């Protein structure tokens, strides 16, 4: 399951990041790393991008980028 599959109000814990270029590095730098707990706050009017809460700050990313974030199956 990936971050792209979550809906507003849901959350998940990161287990890994799929390969990808600059977006992956940016996500890692922002703390999207194994063990981090991500909560989807909302989505943009057309469903993309998504607004995510983690570690007390907020990050937005496109669904295509979120698909690279692997979450633990609950």
């Amino acid at each position, binding site marked *: 399951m990936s971050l792209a599959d979550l809906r507003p109000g849901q959350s998940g814990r990161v287990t890994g*990041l799929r390969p990808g270029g600059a977006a992956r590095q940016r996500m890692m*730098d*922002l703390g999207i790393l194994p063990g981090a707990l991500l909560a989807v706050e909302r989505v943009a009017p057309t469903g993309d991008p998504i607004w995510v809460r983690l570690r*007390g*700050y907020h*990050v937005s*990313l496109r669904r295509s980028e979120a698909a690279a974030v692997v979450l633990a199956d609950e």
Partner: protein
Amino acid sequence: MSTAAGSATSKLDDVGRPDVGRPGVVRVALAGNPNSGKTSIFNALTGSRQRVGNYAGVTVERREGTYRDGDRRYSVMDLPGTYSLTSWSPEERIAQEQLVGVPGERREGTGQLPDVTVVVVDATTLDRSLVLFAQVLQLGANPVLCLNMSDEAKRAGQVLDVDVMRALLGVPVVETVGHRRAGIDALREAIRSAAERPVDVRDRLVLGDRLTDALNAVAKAIEGTPLDGKDRRWTAQKLLVADAAYVGYARALDGPDDVGTGTALLAVAEAERKALEAATGQDADLHVTHQYFGFVAGLLHEVTRRSARDDARALSDRIDAVLVHRVLGLPIFLAVMYGIFWLTFTVGEIPMGWIESGFEALGETVSSWWPAASDSPLRSLLVDGVIGGVGGVIVFLPNILLLFLGLAWLEDTGYMARAAFLMDRLLHRFGLHGQSFAPLITGFGCSVPGIMATRTLRNERDRLVTMMVLPLMSCGARLPIWMLLVPAFFPAAWRAPALWGIYVVGVLLALGLAVLLRRSVFRGANDPFVMELPPYRFPTARAVAGKMTERGGMYVRKAGTVILGLSVLLWGLSTWPKPERYDVDAALASGAAVLAMPDRVGESAVAAVDAGVAVAAAESRVVAARSPRATPAGETGAAEVLTEDELQRRRAAEDLRYSVVGRIGRAIEPVIAPMGFDWQIGTALVGAFAAKEVFVSQMGIVYALGETDETSDGLRSALGARYPPLVGISLMLFLLIATPCMATVAVTRRESGRWRWAIFQFVGLTVVGWGLATVVYQVGSLFG
């Protein structure tokens, strides 16, 4: 790969940093995340002693300043905001290169590495923002830690033991509130002590055994190679994670004299990476980042006496619930944009009017220094060229200032990030970015501030594409043209739709071209949207006003000087060469035309004409000047009657036709003919390059109508009579798309950092405009 100006490189033979004990300029680098308040710290340190430019060949801003402390001068370089030191974006590459240089190279002069690196971190997000600091620590760049926004952190309940932090890190740590200038003295003190007593605390950064072992192995392999240097371990780490730039450096070692060193090095790095990944179960780059976060977490565990409350962002979140609402968000955003627009162009109208009148008055005053009928080129140069040119630039200043005031305010509150979030889906489809929206909308008023506003786009490709298509947003200067052409060529019922249509065509073309550019010239994925959304903050008047005046000043200085120069040039080209004899005077001499007299019954007067032939007085009244399509005298046998006014206007028309501009107009006639244009239009188009509004007045002169503007019925009917509506449409298309005005070109050059893009924009848009207008005209002609 950009390099700092003035750097000389040579093979490294010793590994020391320059002696800082000697009096001289201390070089300070300022690093930090975006949104960390780094800019306000920079401003607080350097005040107004700043210089802004671009790094060579990229769209990244370069900002430097100086200050004095005691008997030393400090030179501060504000590095681009980055989350970490990598090679993925121009910002990060530049920041990395300024801090650590290129491996194996010795930097001299102004390219020297900094003596002190101040890392500005957002104290409210320490568990992430300290990661960059950890990297700077690892570099051994003599760091100073600046905990900015400390007031906000304290308000949220966070309590840190700064003394313990200093002890653990071994570097100066200062708490500041940048936008209120608090803690700046302490910061200066910390910089001074760091400069006088540089420390090497690289061992304070603990990265985990497996990673350390891998790093050691790669570092050993680097030893003795040309990539060796003081920053060997950093180079090792970069090779370990296969950082693109560093892999490039290694590959470059495999020269004709040096076969295999690079390849061998990369092989070692590859082997270590695989081993590390096998041992940890994680990709190497992820593992390294994870270690940084681990170090930061450990540090914070030691120094945090109380954590921030969970609800610290509550107010900001409540605001977001409304502003980024799934349904309300977009309408609110559009309303905000409209508000900015309104502020700029409606409120700005008032001072614009003052400035216009002011320059007119100035023009008249200067003009009056010469006798009324004087032909003096100097007067013309001053009044038409200089005052006209400068006036044309300054008149936009209120708009620009107001626009930047509004945008700066939105930026500093953090709302712009929300706007990008709302708009991204739509714009991304067309190869643009969520943050392209504000600049594009600005372009409806004027391209110049629109292009300047693309600064907020962090990705270079997104930014350039936006700049290229921005002139297609029909700008305010084109409005007089539409006001002239639409009534001239369209019946009343069609006028409003036609005007609307032009704007829509512009937008559609912009989107279409953006897609095209994205697939060809600016191809490339890897432009991340991943973006932090900082909490709403109330901007300080000082910061907002500062941004406003800085950008306004840039406009006046840079765009202004170019425009002034080109205005004068254009003035010259449209004034000379002058014909030696005027056709209209020849007509007067031969009797084909007659000069009418003012209405004085019973009086006779003689008008002296250049040819020296006296014309008998006419006791008739003034005969209104005939339309510009003068009937040759031979056709009707009657002489054409001209007023004095008409005579002057005809002469002016001939002046223009004879001048360089007129000749250019005639010369390009074959090129513009496929669009249905003739040389008269061609002549006016040349003027339109300077500023679009000039098209109208030039058309007026060409048709000997003297001083006209877009409301002139005479000009409208002249055009309507002379050209079919199809030409009108083709002309409007061409003016919409092609030849962005020189101000636009000048600003594009400035903002993109190279001439290449400005030329590409100009040539590209002109070709597209020509092509489309030609197609429309040709196809339309088939249908009659």
